[in-house]
């Protein structure tokens, strides 16, 4: 942070930034063309999608190189292109895009992983008759996601954000013939909506406070000193500034998209979609969008924090993010232990990893979270595609208990998968996951506010290692328990796996504490190759290694190399049945929602009914009684007059009711007449009162 001041921010847009919009535009255009293609034009469709994304990748790499060169010359590259979209009243609605290290890194990641997954899906979806539709959606999704990445206007970001949500809905429900898929799609859509409502509120509030929709606008943007200062002035209750509150609202949206604790329920069900979709959307990119959003508005989140030394300071928003993230990490990891669907396991592990990222953002700043995001994107995509290849090879079998011994049948898949699994577990020193996760844990260990998240994250790491070992030993070791004869997947599917595996290993090199290149790149420090470790670092390294080893060993000891038959209970179940049951039922979250939210509505309906019947009814009854008494009294006082009057009144009311009922006779012209009469009367009154 401090050194960042020394950097002269360079804002004027260069050539590459002018053309940055092409990156999202191309895939969207491709999807538009594909959407009008006829069904038999399969090859053309996939080629269009892949080609467009390939070009986007090239552009993204160019942009990245540009940022890199600027950075190496000591510039904090942040180039924006803003333009006024439409004029609403006097207020121009401004859109724009930004090129800075954050978006550059993200662009390259998304386009690259996306490209690999596109290629992979040409193999995976080969038999599907809706091939073209699939690629249309896929390309649209990629475009929208890239739009989210480059957006410099929170409105543009929100548009693309919703577009992403829509495409994810379409893709989860891609096999809409299956009721389960349709239900999952709906669930995903609605759950994320819940978050987005808050997000929208945050946007509106931000706009109201800062008067601009742009993030960076030559000093006038909502994330720049001026606006942030304005946001920090007003302290509401509980020491929450406007910035903090808006940050929390936006975080709610992010939580919805990237399955943080209260809103994580949709993500596992989303596995109903085709596996490439799971890999692209629910591992690499879309769920990461939430994290990216938080990283994008990090200045807002961390506004008003006082950094002490190495660890950045904290704000209420960041604290919330940290706690939510950490608890999500542990929580999802716990659930993942007791799942039997290969993709569900991965889904829950995704949730927990997203928790790590959030926690990383909370405790360690942008770089820490983003680094894990990038590495995770690679190895989780790898895992999902590996799982897809396994499912493909094992004849659409998804239950890990019906697999096993695939090591022999599909070696490519096995080795790549193993690499991904080790990366996910964070196997020491070699694999990227280790470094990225370690950075988070380290940051957590330095967190001033509380120690608990640190321990939670460590525990999460243990669990991760455990359930991944369980899964791998189920799937690849022991005897083959599935039906039919397992076979290796085609080259077009395994080649991307290999590439991703390579990256899953190598990416770690960018973020080792010895050479924290990535961190510096994102935080605009010059890259320094330094062997300076703060005290306790080695210990930390050791701790996490031991934890990982422990997890692996435990998993192997429980599940290693034995091939249980599908119907016999799980090893852990035999060990501690009650725990297993709790986990196997996903900690009863869905049931919890059923028991709270929905039950609440039932209860509320009951209450309303009761109020209506008893309270209201009784009131009416009492009033009636009162009147009765009153009437009695009157009869005693002055029977005739009052009685007569009362009867008359009743008659009048009755007749009036009759007349009104007759008016309501379902003939349009009569209604029109009444309307006209009313107009006449009103107008007459108006004029009468108006004239002098």
């Amino acid at each position, binding site marked *: 942070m401090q050194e960042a001041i020394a950097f002269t921010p360079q804002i004027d847009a260069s050539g590459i930034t002018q053309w940055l919009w092409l990156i999202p535009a191309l895939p969207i255009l491709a999807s538009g063309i594909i959407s009008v293609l006829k069904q038999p034009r399969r090859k053309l469709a996939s080629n269009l999608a892949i080609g467009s994304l390939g070009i986007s990748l090239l552009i993204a790499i160019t942009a990245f190189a540009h940022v890199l060169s600027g950075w190496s010359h000591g510039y904090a590259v942040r180039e924006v292109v803003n333009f006024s979209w*439409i004029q*609403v009243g006097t207020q121009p609605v401004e859109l724009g895009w930004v090129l800075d290290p954050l978006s550059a890194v993200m662009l390259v990641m998304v386009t690259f992983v996306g490209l690999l997954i596109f290629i992979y899906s040409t193999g995976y979806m080969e038999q599907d008759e809706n091939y073209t539709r699939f690629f249309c959606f896929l390309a649209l999704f990629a475009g929208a996601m890239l739009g989210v990445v480059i957006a410099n206007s929170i409105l543009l970001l929100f548009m693309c954000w919703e577009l992403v949500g829509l495409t994810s809905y379409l893709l989860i429900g891609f096999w809409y013939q299956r009721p389960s898929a349709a239900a999952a799609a709906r669930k995903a859509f609605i759950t994320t909506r819940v978050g987005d409502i808050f997000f929208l509120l945050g946007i509106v509030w931000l706009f109201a406070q800062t008067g601009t929709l742009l993030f960076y606008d030559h000093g006038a943007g909502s994330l720049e000193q001026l606006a942030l200062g304005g946001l920090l002035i007003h302290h509401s209750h509980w020491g929450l500034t406007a910035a903090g509150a808006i940050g929390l609202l936006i975080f709610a949206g992010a939580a919805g998209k990237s399955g943080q604790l209260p809103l994580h329920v949709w993500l596992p069900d989303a596995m109903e979609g085709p596996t490439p979709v799971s890999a692209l959307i629910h591992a690499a990119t879309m769920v990461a969008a939430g994290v990216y959003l938080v990283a994008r508005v990090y200045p807002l989140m961390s506004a008003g924090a006082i950094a002490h030394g190495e660890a950045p300071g904290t704000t209420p928003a960041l604290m919330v993010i940290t706690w939510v993230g950490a608890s999500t990490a542990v929580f999802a990891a716990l659930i993942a232990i007791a799942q039997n669907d290969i993709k569900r396991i991965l889904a829950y592990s995704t949730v927990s990893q997203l928790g790590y990222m959030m926690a990383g953002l909370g405790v360690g700043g942008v770089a820490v979270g983003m680094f894990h995001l990038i590495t995770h994107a690679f190895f989780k995509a790898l895992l999902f595609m590996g799982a897809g290849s396994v499912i493909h090879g094992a004849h659409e079998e998804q239950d890990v208990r019906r697999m096993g011994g695939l090591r022999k049948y599909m070696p490519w898949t096995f080795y790549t998968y193993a690499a991904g699994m080790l990366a996910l577990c964070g196997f020491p020193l070699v694999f990227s996951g280790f470094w990225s996760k370690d950075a988070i844990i380290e940051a957590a260990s330095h967190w001033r506010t509380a120690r608990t998240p640190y321990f939670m994250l460590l525990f999460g790491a243990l669990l991760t290692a455990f359930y991944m070992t369980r899964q791998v030993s189920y799937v690849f070791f022991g005897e083959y328990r599935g039906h039919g004869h397992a076979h290796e997947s085609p080259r077009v599917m395994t080649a991307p796996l290999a590439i991703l595996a390579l990256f899953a290993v190598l990416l770690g090199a960018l973020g080792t504490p010895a050479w924290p290149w990535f961190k510096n790149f994102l935080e605009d420090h010059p890259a320094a190759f330094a062997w300076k470790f703060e005290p306790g670092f080695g210990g930390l390294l050791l701790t996490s290694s031991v934890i990982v080893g422990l997890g692996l060993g435990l998993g192997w000891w429980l599940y290693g190399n034995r091939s249980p038959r599908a119907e016999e209970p799980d090893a852990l179940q035999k060990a501690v049945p009650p725990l297993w049951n709790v986990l196997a039922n996903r900690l009863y979250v869905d049931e919890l929602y059923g028991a709270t939210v929905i039950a609440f509505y039932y209860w509320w309906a009951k209450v309303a009914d009761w109020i209506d019947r008893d309270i209201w009814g009784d009131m009416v009854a009492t009033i009636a009684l009162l009147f009765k008494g009153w009437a009695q009294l009157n009869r005693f006082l002055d029977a005739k007059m009052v009685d007569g009057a009362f009867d008359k009144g009743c008659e009048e009311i009755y007749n009036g009711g009759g007349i009104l009922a007759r008016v309501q006779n379902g003939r349009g*012209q*009569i209604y029109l*007449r009444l309307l*006209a*009469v009313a*107009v*006449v009367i009103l*107008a*007459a009154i108006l*004029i009468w009162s*108006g*004239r002098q």
Partner: protein
Amino acid sequence: MGFVFYLISAFAVGGALAAVLLKNLVHAALALTIAFFGLALLFLRLDAQFAGFAQILVYVGAVAILVVFAILLTRGSEIPKEGVFSKGWIAGLAISAAVFAVLAWAVLQAAPWLPNEAATPALTVNDIGNALMSRYVLPLEIIAVLLTAALLGAVIVAMHEKEKTNQ
């Protein structure tokens, strides 16, 4: 207070009256077009060329034809035996008379303050086009969407049901 104005107004009002009173619906529709023409002429007299021609193009060219088609499709061209006026036609007449009375009253009340003459505005169709493209662009878009929706809606509403078309 030109003689032409009287003529045109008489034209329009007569057309309107005929449209409302004629028994044969097709005659009514044709009378309606006369009324539209008269109104268009009034627009022209108010130096609103564009609106006037648009009025003729839209109403005479499209709406009147639509009405005629609808009449023929619903066999409206033959006169029903139970008469063309609804039971409570007197009430309806009275009410509309009252509406006219109130409106006229309002106008006459305000007449002293209303301007009697105005300089002819130096406006070309280009100005209208520019205004539509710059100041009123959002309404224009919305109208476009509305028209599309109305088109589809009308088609869907008036379309035969599936089983009807199949057999």
